[in-house]
């Protein structure tokens, strides 16, 4: 019987003392911030004019949908969370919120985020958001996570969908650009989470979660990290030769990719002791920066593209004023 079940029995009929902060913690704010950022990029690179109010509505709904997924995930994984040092401090294992309260909270947010996005923006985006929540909660959390070492590979699709939802919200359709963003996040997920799993493998083993280092061993995981990183770097650079983004993005993507490759090679090379631990921690930390920097470059390129004609238009006027003053 899990720690959570003990709480339920000991407390009997309980009256919640959960604060708003406990419910915010259920939303996984750090994951949500990455979702918001990647969705924002999907929204900004989409062609055509999208009213700021509708853009704000879309991002808000995607963020709340991501939070709902986090709450439902915590409701369903309370037994695992209680056994892992990384997650033991979450609101449910601490006894602040019961799994059924988290479930109700998550379902309410999921319903309102999908319906609001569908009604106020469009139903393609609403449907995709519903699919994202379903995939994360049912396919990943309830099925894959406790069943296969490929859990985070397939489940990574849920984390990769926010920019696609955002693009669909802005355009009402889908095309190659959001698919590329999807693929970048999809192939980024395994090296990122397996690096974490390498230095938290004891946690996962104790909780009975079949992460790759637990099932196949750390050496097989190191090889998989290296292989996925090669694919990731190639896919991340792909928008440049495919003509979706220019050379600035291509060069930055390759430089960042070189950093990822170097750290992945180090993870593969150093297999024991402190050097091995340091290599996996560095890859995990850099992978977060890598994704952020890659998407920030996309964002900046679009902003520069939009601002450049304005600067070109006003430059002669500014020059004339400057010469008149001079």
């Amino acid at each position: 019987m899990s720690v959570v079940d003990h709480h339920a029995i000991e407390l009997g009929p309980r009256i919640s003392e959960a604060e708003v902060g406990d419910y915010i913690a259920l939303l996984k704010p750090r994951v949500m911030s990455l979702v918001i950022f990647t969705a924002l990029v999907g929204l900004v690179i989409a062609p055509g004019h999208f009213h700021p109010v509708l853009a704000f509505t879309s991002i808000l709904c995607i963020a709340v949908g991501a939070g709902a997924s986090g709450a439902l995930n915590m409701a369903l994984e309370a037994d695992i969370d209680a056994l892992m040092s990384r997650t033991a401090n979450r609101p449910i294992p601490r006894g602040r919120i019961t799994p059924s309260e988290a479930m109700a909270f998550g379902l309410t947010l999921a319903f309102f985020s999908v319906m609001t996005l569908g009604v106020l923006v469009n139903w393609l985006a609403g449907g995709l958001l519903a699919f994202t929540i379903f995939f994360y909660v049912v396919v990943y959390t309830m099925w894959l996570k406790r069943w296969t070492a490929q859990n985070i590979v397939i489940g990574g699709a849920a984390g990769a969908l926010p920019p696609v939802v955002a693009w669909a919200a802005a355009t009402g359709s889908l095309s190659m650009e959001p698919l590329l963003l999807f693929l970048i996040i999809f192939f980024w997920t395994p090296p990122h989470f397996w690096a974490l799993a390498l230095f938290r493998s004891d946690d996962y083993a104790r909780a009975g979660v079949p992460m790759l280092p637990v099932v196949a061993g750390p050496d097989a995981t190191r090889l998989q990290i290296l292989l996925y990183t090669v694919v990731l770097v190639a896919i991340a650079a792909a928008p440049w030769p495919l003509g979706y983004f220019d050379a600035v993005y291509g060069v930055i993507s390759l430089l960042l990719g070189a950093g990822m490759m170097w750290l992945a090679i180090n993870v593969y090379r150093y297999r024991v002791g402190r050097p091995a631990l340091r290599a996996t921690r560095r890859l995990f930390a850099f992978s977060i920066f890598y994704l952020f920097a890659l998407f920030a470059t996309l964002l900046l390129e679009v902003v520069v593209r939009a601002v450049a004609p304005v600067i070109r238009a006003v430059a002669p006027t500014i020059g004339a004023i400057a010469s008149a003053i001079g």
Partner: protein
Amino acid sequence: MDDEQKPDGIVLTEAQKRSRRHRSVAIALALGVLVVLFFAVTMVKGPGVLVRPM
């Protein structure tokens, strides 16, 4: 049942009252945001608010 045996019911502690009040305020704020959001989008879309493309 005489008066002495009548149950008092559940009496909330101060901490429970405070956290319930905070949660209620948060729910009210969330509903307020939802109302403002629907109003703003209705203003932005005008008559087009009834057009809901796939």
